[in-house]
């Protein structure tokens, strides 16, 4: 599914290397978790994969099912099946949540040469999915993320993911700022989407989320590299003894 090879990234504006050779392969249907201290480059990795400006890839590659992601515009990556749930979802005053989602769904369909979703089908689908995430109709009408609480924003990300049905989902600290109930909702939303043809890369600080979304593989990222890879137990190890040992191993 996702193949990242020796990825080196620096900031465009200054000579600061952030990713220093990331190697990562996510197979079809797998859930991988990335943990790591603040500032280790987890969000940068997710932004670079999604195609945000401001970064320069100096070496390496990233492919989604053999397609060179780095050569595509952000919208093309989305149409190719990549989705990023933002650590900090953006507020867009004046653009209705519903309008936004319908535009996005249909733009992706159009890019893939599929037929647009009728407004009745769209309404039916979004209502059902919003309900299971406890997003009420009023929230759907409001401008994108404007006035949403932290938890509402994160649930809104999962709603977008559910509507867009991507094959590669990256979740950047979707659990941060959520209380236990909200986290369970989000986890249920994610688990409902798990399937043989869909993979997840879950970035998190805490073992907590991984109790609900069981990962197949856990990676530890430090200083722009994956420094350790293991099974679900690795997350437990982080929980009890922190990153100190692992990070020092490489340093």
């Amino acid at each position: 599914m996702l193949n990242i090879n020796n990825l080196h990234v620096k900031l465009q504006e200054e000579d600061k290397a952030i990713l220093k050779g990331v190697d990562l392969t996510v197979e079809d249907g797998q859930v991988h978790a990335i943990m790591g201290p603040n500032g280790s480059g987890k969000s940068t990795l997710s932004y670079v994969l999604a195609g945000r400006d401001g970064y320069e890839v100096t070496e390496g590659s990233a492919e989604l099912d053999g397609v060179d992601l780095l050569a595509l515009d952000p919208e093309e990556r989305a149409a190719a099946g990549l989705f990023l749930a933002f650590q900090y979802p953006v507020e867009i005053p004046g653009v209705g949540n519903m309008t936004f989602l319908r535009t996005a769904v249909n733009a992706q369909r159009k890019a893939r040469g599929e037929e647009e979703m009728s407004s009745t089908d769209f309404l039916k689908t979004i209502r059902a999915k919003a309900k299971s995430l406890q997003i009420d109709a009023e929230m759907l009408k409001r401008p994108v993320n404007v006035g949403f609480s932290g938890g509402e924003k994160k649930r809104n990300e999962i709603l977008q993911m559910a509507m867009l049905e991507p094959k590669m989902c990256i979740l950047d600290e979707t659990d941060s700022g959520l209380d236990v109930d909200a986290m369970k909702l989000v986890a249920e939303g994610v688990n409902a989407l798990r399937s043989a043809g869909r993979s997840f890369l879950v970035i998190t600080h805490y073992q907590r989320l991984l109790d609900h979304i069981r990962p197949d593989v856990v990676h530890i990222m430090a200083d722009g590299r994956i420094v350790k890879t293991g099974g679900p137990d690795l997350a437990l190890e982080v929980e009890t003894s922190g990153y100190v040992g692992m990070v020092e191993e490489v340093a």
Partner: protein
Amino acid sequence: MALAAAKQEATATRLEALSLPEGATWAKAARQDALGRVRAMGLPTRRDEYWKYTNPATLVQAEAPAACLFDADESPIFGQIDRLRIVFVDGVFDAYASDDLALAGVTIERLAEAGATDIHWARDIYGAFEARGQTPVARPFAALNTAFASDGLLIRASGKAAMPVSVEYLHRSETSDAILHHVIRVEEGAELTLLENGPAAARFNKVMEVDVADGASFHHVRAQGRDHERRAATHVFARLGAESTFKSFTLTVNGVLTRNEVVVELTGDNAVAHVAGAAVGDGDFHHDDTVFVTHDAVACESRQVFKKVLRNGATGVFQGKILVKKDAQKTDGYQISQSLMLDDNAQFLAKPELEIYADDVACSHGSTSGAIDEDALFYLRSRGVPEGQAQDLLVLAFLAEAIDEIDDPAISADILSRLDGWLQRHHS
């Protein structure tokens, strides 16, 4: 005070090219007075404070600069709305294209044909509102208009108008120079919607005087376009009675020079005046909104909402003032002017002003100028929305506060479709 020689000469040259119209003898005195006003104040130059941001030279010169005709294959705006349609071509009434000037609840006449008698309801308004609007700031093109307007509409609503009155200004001659003057009176408790659209002429000078009586309501929506080289100086002078409502929205797409002045006087308690504008311009587009709202009664509300989307060298100007007189307590005044710059070459010049003499008022104003929010753009694109479409969504979101000032959803849908057309044609 004697005018500067250059100004005097420019004014004389312009006036020589015009002749006072014959029709509507009841308006004769008003025309003579207005001519006197123009001579006394002279036509503006860039040196006048009120024209600091907009060069009036091409509006002053004797001949209208030529303007090419724009032919886009677009369905006419407001075409799907039930309306009474009145057409002027290059400022000349087109009887063949117009509907009969008959509408339940409303009487409509043409200025050029409004009788040789000395009595007419419009006599108290024609040129009178314009003259009042000359202080504290001179508006010479409006006085010129009162003196020389060749035609216009005299509309009087005595009940709820059965449908909107729609005035279309077509442009067919590349050198046309049109001067039209409308007088509108909405009687006590009556309701009228006026729609205006079209490029009008190579150069267009239009004045509209509106008397909104107690409890009356007047809605005005206009779409100025589309011929890029056209020029226009327009004025609205409105006086509002108690409990009355006045709402005016203007969409401007293209136009090498547009100056829209709106002068509103709230003279009856609890009146409401909203003036809004959305302008989108590319290249040598120059658009100027100059608004003056005077609160002269208790507990009135006024809103000014002006948004401009500019790119590729386009210039936007906003001069907006709220004047609250001593006894206008409980005034609620709001003013916002914003520009969205789609690149680094556009220019926005704003002069927001508050002048308040009452002590119990709530007035706020703000003016901002910014670029497209890159984070929002990336967020939209990351969901699969192509860059151009994402930008359009953000542009429309920026304009939403102004467009929301249009009450009728069918009319605002029309305005939105016109904006969409512009955005499609002007993608980078």
